């Protein structure tokens, strides 16, 4: 079965994900209305400003649409996308989708002057990933059934729960497509189950 990945295109780095997917030969489409999800078999919620994306999701009825989509389809959330996938957020300005059992903390590492790059240890690949953390969120109160997929200096920075993955750094800002590739291979597994 061929996968068509929807990339939520309300605000943020959505075009970079389209580029990463096309490098892997995977078809994608930009999603700006909930109805457009019907043509997709998976969804990426990209980085951007979580308050902006949350507000536009509410305005256009994305909350019920993504929640029901996520019951049967994989979702990848990056940075702001991670915040939106959480059960709980430390800031009332963002309404979470409650797709993975953890609490997200916005701007965990501080403002832009504290943004950084680091080699992150992946649990599914022996080579580290050179990751960019941009005003990145933190992962807290992780439920024991959630899988830790990557960490950096004892902080969990990437998690998986069934078909869903959330991460606090930006795989789309690198030419390295291993993270997208890993998520897609999990997508295919769930599709064949």
């Amino acid at each position, binding site marked *: 079965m061929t996968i068509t990945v929807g990339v939520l295109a309300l605000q943020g780095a*959505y075009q970079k994900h389209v580029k990463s997917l096309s490098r892997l030969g995977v078809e994608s489409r930009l999603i*700006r209305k909930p109805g457009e999800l019907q043509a997709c078999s998976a969804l990426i919620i990209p980085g*951007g400003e979580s308050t*902006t994306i949350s507000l*536009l999701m509410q305005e256009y009825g994305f909350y019920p649409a993504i929640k029901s989509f996520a019951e049967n389809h994989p979702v990848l959330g990056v940075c702001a996308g991670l915040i939106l996938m959480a059960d709980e957020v430390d800031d009332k*300005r963002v309404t979470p989708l409650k797709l993975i059992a953890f609490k997200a903390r916005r701007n965990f590492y501080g403002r832009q*002057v504290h943004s*950084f790059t*680091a080699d992150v240890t992946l649990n599914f690949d022996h080579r580290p990933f050179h990751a960019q953390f941009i005003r990145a969120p933190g992962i807290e109160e992780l439920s024991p059934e959630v899988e830790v997929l990557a960490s950096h200096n004892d902080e969990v920075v990437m998690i998986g729960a069934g078909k869903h993955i959330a991460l606090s750094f930006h795989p789309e*800002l690198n030419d390295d497509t291993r993270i997208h590739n890993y998520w897609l291979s999990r997508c295919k597994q769930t599709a064949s189950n």
Partner: protein
Amino acid sequence: MKNNNNESTPYANDDFKVKVGLAEMLKGGTIMDVTNAEQAKIAEDAGACAVMALERIPSDIRRDGGVARMSDPDMIQQIKDTVSIPVMAKCRIGHFAEAQIIQALEVDFIDESEVLTPADEANHIYKHDFKVPFVCGATNLGEALRRIGEGAAMIRTKGEAGSGNIVEAVRHMRALQNEMQRLTTLGREQLMSVAKDMGAPYDLVCYVAEHGELPVPNFSAGGIATPADAALVRQLGAQAVFVGSGIFKSEDPAARAVAIVKATTHFDDATVLLEVSRGLQPGMKGLEMSEIPEEERLAARGW
């Protein structure tokens, strides 16, 4: 921490990538000029992806005259304390001491801006010296590449700030897009000559010739007053928009701010654009370009 810093091409190093990374996150969004915490809150609630903290919005600077400088740090601090989205602040062209102060305040982006009175008529700031990313204005490709050469992590094509008139933003966005398009049609042997004529760094000219776009995000600023204006510059290639006087000089800032945010997202969907254009109170009055004397045009500042 691994750092691939290389002095000869500083825009290929990790520090620069992290700066451009934040610019990438602002794409598809609306950045709003605000002069106090209350306006910043309205902007954030309306869906702004960042705010620009400044003491007077461009149309008031234009009206009041005098020297326009960096904003009061306490005012910027109050705005930082009020909103969770990135906060930007402006320094004068070439005024690296103002930039150092703004960086010490931990603002997320610095705008080396022609809206303020230039401090140096020959030199812009060497922006690679800073940890905080910079955005700079440009009216053409040569100017954009010079700013990137100095370390700008984002370009905004200049409209005429405080005019409420979109014509200059369109002129400069089209100029930039046309020049980038032209470069992609040239042979390798022609690029040094282009670099010479444009006064632009050769390696950046080569990058544009190969990719057909700038190595950093390109937004549009100046003269955007309506949802339709935002949609127009987005369709012409702006990856996000800055709105200054257009929001807080209108009669219904909150409603207009939401409408412009939605128009920026749904820039190519006329059904949404129609819906958000309805029921707005009058926008700012605006100025015909012939009403602004050449020497008072802000877009002409910088080179």
